[in-house]
């Protein structure tokens, strides 16, 4: 039996600030996106859906959307694979397990901006340690092909620990008996992984995918600091494009339209995953 009293009064403050700082702005963004608004020159004019009509024909937007999708797909897939590998590795018992786990957390704890700067230096063509160790002279951040992959690599490095943590927790709740039973049935380690670990881990994997896909899709700081969207916009994501339009030239109308696209895309992704999860449960 719950206390009938006052529940709502405890929840209200949080709800109010959340609404003020997130829901209200999103409505406001929509309002802005219906205007030609050049903050600098005090131009503000209602133009209905003109910004969206321009957006549909804007090659740079489609390019940014393609980059974002590619970035998201590849980095989430790699993070999951790598995270799964490391989680399985760390799930065995060995000495220094605690210390190893703490070390794995390091990339997660480093500020994204710092990690982007760090890798920028290491990717340097001329004096970067990566080219030195590999004995090559690749222009990592300068060629469109390498730059997007370098950005993906930095994101994978930064966020794999998060995946490892969640998956490790998932691994720990799998009953040991299932493994012994499988072993008695003569299953090899790969078979055990496929028939025991993977199916039982699936709910956690879905949660990981949800978090990571949403995060990757709205990626901003890592890429903004690493490449600024270049070369030739080959690493420009929708968030970066929107930010540049918004704050380099203060075109708040079109910039708002662009940022709403990010909102709707992440919203759809979220709903898609949540449906997938609830669908599985019932």
């Amino acid at each position, binding site marked *: *039996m*719950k*206390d009938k009293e006052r*529940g*709502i*009064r*405890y*929840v209200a*403050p*949080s*709800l109010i*600030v*959340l609404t003020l*700082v*997130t829901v*209200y702005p*999103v409505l406001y*963004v929509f309002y*802005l996106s219906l205007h030609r608004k050049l903050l600098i020159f005090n131009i503000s004019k209602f133009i209905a859906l003109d910004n969206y009509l321009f957006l549909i024909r804007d090659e740079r937007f489609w390019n940014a959307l393609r980059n974002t999708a590619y970035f998201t797909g590849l980095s989430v897939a790699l993070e999951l694979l790598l995270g799964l590998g490391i989680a399985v590795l760390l799930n*065995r018992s*060995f000495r220094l397990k*605690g210390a*190893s*786990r*703490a*070390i*794995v957390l*390091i*990339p*997660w*704890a*480093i*500020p994204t*901006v*710092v990690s*982007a*700067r*760090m890798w920028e*230096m*290491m990717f340097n063509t001329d*004096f970067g340690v990566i080219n*030195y160790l590999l004995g090559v002279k690749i222009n990592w951040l300068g060629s469109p092909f390498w730059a997007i992959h370098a950005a993906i690599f930095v994101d994978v*490095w930064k966020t794999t620990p998060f995946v490892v*943590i*969640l998956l490790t*927790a*998932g691994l720990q709740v799998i009953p040991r008996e299932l493994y012994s039973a499988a072993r008695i049935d003569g299953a090899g380690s790969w078979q055990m992984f496929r028939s025991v670990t993977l199916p039982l881990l699936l709910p956690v994997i879905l*949660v990981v995918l949800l978090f990571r896909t*949403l995060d990757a*899709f*709205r990626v901003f*700081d890592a890429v903004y*600091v690493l490449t600024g969207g270049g070369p030739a916009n080959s690493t420009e994501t929708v*968030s970066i494009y929107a*930010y540049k339009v918004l704050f380099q030239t203060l075109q708040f109308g079109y910039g708002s339209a662009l*940022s*709403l696209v*990010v*909102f709707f895309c*992440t919203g759809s992704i979220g709903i898609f995953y949540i449906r997938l999860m609830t669908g599985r449960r019932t």
Partner: protein
Amino acid sequence: MMKRAGFYALLAVVMLYCAGPLAWQLITSIKLSGEIAVLPPLVSTNPTAAHYLSVFHDYSFARYILNSLIVAGSTTILSLLLGSICSFGLAKLRVPFASLVLAFILSVSMFPPIATVSPLYIIIRTLGLRDTLAALVMTHTVFSLPLTVWVLTNFFRTVPDDIYHAARIDGCRPFQVYWKIMLPLSLPAVFTTAILVFIFSWNEFLFALTFTSASARTVPVAIALFPGIHEMPWGEIAAASVIVTLPIILLVLLFQRKIVEGLTSGAVKG
């Protein structure tokens, strides 16, 4: 035996992969400027503290660190305060549409910051809060609320209802139960959340970049916008990176278990 060796070799690779870049940053930060642009040698022959001194002397990093500490500290306190009250309500009191409310709060964590940054900018400007720490504390608090509420609600639910009812019968008002019983009981969970919120706020970039320009600048923005006319002061950047990262790394090494608990709370159970 071979298998064991293989395992440790693999483990070593993973550790190097995770910690190597930071170690490299450390090595770079004590090289002379002239040595940074030349490889080999990998490690400096005569290490220098010059970049560290310069970061504080020429780039007023002490100020940025103080700003970051104030923002992250206030955010942590406010977020925990607001969030724990809300979680208490959700977990122990009757709230109409409680699960819907929780779902709404969680869905806010999926809001892309970029979709709110332009109106927030206009609001903050209108309130005259541009380039103040208050603007950052406000946004960081709100964007960390979902995490706080989620972790704490889950934890409060594990505290038996009997404790709550016993206290009520003893004449405590609900708020007293929250303040005198629930919070002290939940200190471990509160602490875990505090670390996560602190790290989130310490690292946040988009809002800090947009809402501040000089006096309220935080460390990540300062590192992203290191001044130099045409050149990159790589030694200073490396030193600054080490300085801002070390406290966080220390937190992680000390409270690894707590952080893992916090991050996994809900994700696995829920």
